[in-house]
């Protein structure tokens, strides 16, 4: 660099005078501990400043260990090197979708920052500098430029969805763009046109060997499809068929990319310079620099597969106008896979699809929810209820309808939150459900029933039970999701299982009433009755599993451990279940169904388990309602659960869920049944070893199968 050039680029210009000596002399003159500062200076100013040269704080610092390769965007590259760059950028894109910052992922591709430098329109002498026929510069200026533009536009569209506020920035995803353009103002059509132009060039050129032409074309096509899918997600309900075709095309492209991953390039290849893992040091970001390990091609394809599967679910949901199905799908997706396996973009899109701030599923008004809620839960039209107060939307029902809407929307949307936030939403909804229950009870109690026949009167009373079913399901989910979040201390775990079994017991009681004693209320052969019958058996199985775990864990603890540490444990349980002890419940006229856990009852049951020997009968609260028999041991509980689950599987019973969702539910049942089967030998071993359940090893079991809150059943 010559002096003139250096001078020209010195930041701030030339009107500067060297004062280094002034500072050096002042340092000698000043007393230790003294400062020279502006009047408004405070200690806080010094404390909040970033110390340059401190590797922990100074994000711009170049560490001696980091070696930067010199990057020139117009360095000619071989087709395989372009392919390698594209595959690596795809890997980084999936890492951004996995909640990492752009500065550590997509932005490490340096072409992102040099798009204008590789624009063929501003490079008129391109043909003169391109001397190597095996490295045509069009690979950079046409192919890679189009791909990078498409990549940035894809990130822009995903960013737009994620920034809608359904998910939390820095918790579920990273919004920081570090002042780098994601081609925000550029139309999607232009990005697609650029990709099309690149595809055309690849199809007609003779400069690239045919095998590499195909490899590059399939990657450009995949990018083009991803871009179009991202662009169509908002109009999913309108362009459903087009979306499905795009999805099919994306799956096809991905399968080819998966089958033919790009081989790694030589260590001396100039393509390595296309990525700067420490680019964040040069960007406007305060995030500490972190080098993200590049996922393997297999991992990258799996990550894309998860996004495509998410889109598949969204396509199905866009045609699903049953809120109970939405509820079950939401529950399944949080039970099925590890939280990291659900891309934030899909979770946000699902929430937007359900409610975009104006409409439900892009077509229905909010009031539509009220009718669906009651009709799907107890099989009776909301009109049957509403007619006694002037019909749906009448002044007397406004409060009720508002509460249903304001509870159902966050309840369903919240199922696509991350596990911790999802649990918090559910905890909040427990009180909201009770508010609806209270409102319904007050309305029915205030109704003059002199002119109403007893059957209708009975039906009106059942509407509040619909709300109770949702509330009890939420409580159960809150308790069991605590295992997924690893919230519970070992001493708290037996209580959690016991309390879950108690809540299920009440739930079964309500289902009993609706299915048998109030048989006339829920119409025969209605989807609601079918679902209730399924839930009845399913919950019995879940209750048996919970009881098995409760007994097993109590026996695994030192004798009287619960009693000896009860004071501390009681305080912990109060804090853990604080949602059950809310004074807010005192404001309502009607008492909630299931609220505060009965600690005395729990201690009695613990005592009972301790007192009785391994082979003696344990008659606890979980009576088998279908067989009326007492259960004896943990093994028997699991056997019962397995029998019940196998019954559902053999009769292909999936309740009200059909098609893909029914298939998912069946997968869930099989996973649960197999879990019961696999726990037998461990529990048998622990029984013969004086109940040492610590021998149940998580790693010894195959927990990869589907299972509801599987963590809840694999922790000793």
């Amino acid at each position, binding site marked *: 660099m010559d002096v003139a050039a250096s001078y020209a*680029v010195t930041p701030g210009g030339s009107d500067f005078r060297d004062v280094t000596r002034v500072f050096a002399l002042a340092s000698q003159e000043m007393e230790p501990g003294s400062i020279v500062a502006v009047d408004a200076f405070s*200690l806080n100013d010094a404390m909040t400043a970033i110390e340059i*040269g401190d590797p922990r704080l100074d994000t711009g610092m170049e560490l001696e260990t980091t070696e930067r390769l010199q990057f020139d965007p117009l360095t000619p590259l071989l087709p395989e090197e372009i392919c390698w760059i594209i595959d690596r950028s795809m890997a980084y894109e999936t890492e951004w979708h996995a909640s990492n910052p752009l500065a550590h992922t997509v932005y490490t591709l340096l072409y992102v920052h040099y798009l204008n430098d590789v624009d063929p329109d501003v490079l008129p002498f391109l043909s003169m500098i391109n001397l190597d026929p095996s490295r045509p510069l069009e690979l950079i200026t046409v192919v890679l430029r189009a791909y990078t533009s498409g990549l940035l536009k894809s990130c822009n569209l995903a960013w737009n969805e994620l920034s809608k506020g359904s998910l939390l920035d820095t918790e579920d995803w990273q919004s920081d763009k570090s002042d780098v353009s994601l081609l925000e103002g550029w139309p999607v059509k232009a990005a697609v046109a650029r990709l099309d132009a690149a595809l055309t060039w690849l199809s007609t050129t003779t400069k690239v060997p045919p095998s590499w032409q195909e490899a590059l074309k399939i990657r450009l096509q995949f990018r083009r499809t991803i871009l179009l899918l991202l662009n169509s997600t908002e109009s999913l309900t309108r362009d459903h068929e087009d979306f499905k075709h795009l999805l099919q095309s994306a799956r096809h492209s991905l399968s080819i990319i998966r089958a033919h991953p790009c081989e790694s390039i030589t260590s001396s290849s100039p393509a390595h310079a296309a990525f700067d893992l420490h680019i964040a040091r040069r960007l406007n970001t305060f995030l500490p620099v972190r080098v993200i390990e590049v996922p393997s091609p297999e991992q990258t394809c799996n990550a894309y597969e998860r996004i495509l599967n998410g889109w598949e679910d969204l396509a199905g949901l866009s045609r699903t106008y049953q809120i109970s199905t939405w509820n079950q799908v939401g529950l399944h997706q949080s039970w099925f896979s590890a939280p990291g396996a659900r891309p934030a973009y899909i979770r946000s899109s699902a929430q937007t699809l359900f409610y975009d701030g104006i409409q439900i599923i892009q077509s229905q008004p909010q009031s539509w929810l009220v009718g669906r809620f009651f009709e799907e839960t107890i099989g009776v039209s909301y009109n049957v209820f509403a007619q006694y107060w002037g019909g749906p939307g009448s002044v007397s029902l406004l409060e009720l309808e508002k509460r249903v809407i304001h509870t159902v929307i966050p309840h369903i949307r919240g199922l696509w939150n991350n596990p911790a936030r999802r649990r918090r939403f559910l905890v909040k909804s427990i009180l909201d459900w009770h508010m609806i229950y209270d409102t319904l009870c007050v309305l029915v109690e205030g109704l003059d029933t002199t002119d109403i026949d007893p059957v209708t009167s009975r039906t009106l009373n059942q509407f509040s039970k619909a709300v109770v079913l949702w509330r009890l399901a939420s409580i159960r989910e809150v308790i069991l999701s605590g295992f997924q979040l690893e919230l519970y201390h070992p001493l708290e775990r037996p209580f959690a299982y016991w309390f879950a079994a108690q809540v299920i017991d009440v739930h079964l009681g309500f289902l009993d009433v609706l299915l048998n004693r109030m048989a006339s209320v829920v119409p025969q052969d209605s989807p609601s009755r079918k679902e209730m019958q399924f839930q009845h058996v399913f919950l019995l199985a879940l209750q048996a599993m919970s009881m098995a775990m409760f007994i097993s864990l109590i026996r695994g603890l030192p004798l009287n451990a619960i009693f000896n540490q009860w004071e501390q444990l009681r305080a912990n349980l109060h804090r853990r279940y604080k949602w059950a002890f809310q004074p807010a419940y005192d404001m309502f006229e009607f008492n909630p169904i299931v609220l505060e856990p009965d600690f005395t009852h729990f201690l009695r049951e613990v005592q009972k388990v301790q007192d009785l020997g391994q082979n003696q009968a344990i008659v606890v609260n979980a009576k088998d309602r279908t067989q009326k028999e007492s259960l004896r041991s943990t093994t028997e509980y699991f056997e019962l659960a397995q029998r019940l689950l196998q019954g559902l599987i053999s009769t292909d019973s999936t309740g009200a869920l059909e098609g893909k969702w029914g298939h998912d539910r069946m997968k869930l049942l099989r996973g649960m049944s197999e879990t019961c089967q696999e726990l037998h030998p461990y529990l048998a071993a622990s029984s013969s070893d004086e109940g040492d359940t610590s021998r149940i090893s998580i790693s010894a079991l195959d927990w990869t199968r589907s299972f509801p809150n599987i963590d809840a059943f694999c922790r000793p």
Partner: protein
Amino acid sequence: MALSAANTSNASHTSATAELRQLLSSTLRITVVDGRIFLGSFIGTDQPMNILLTDTEEYRIESSEAGKNDREESSSTSGRFVGQILIPWKIIQKIEVQEPVQPQPSARTQSGYDGHVM
């Protein structure tokens, strides 16, 4: 934090310190040993010369090897905002202060102007 809080009146008012005070609130350009340049407003320092700048931009001047590439160089000279920073004396290579802009002499004050309106 290296910058110690103490009474500013403790500083003796000899010439260099007084001159240092004159620099407060001025724009400083500090070059550090790894080649970066920081341009920010000088708000304080302590006796070991841990210098506090506010509203600072960080610039990176490439070495002559990397600087061969014009595109690279041009991009590196666009600063990134780093806000309030503290630069320890041990990594400082050079400190410069921006001279106040002198008003351009107007035509009326130029010698040789005879006052006649053209």
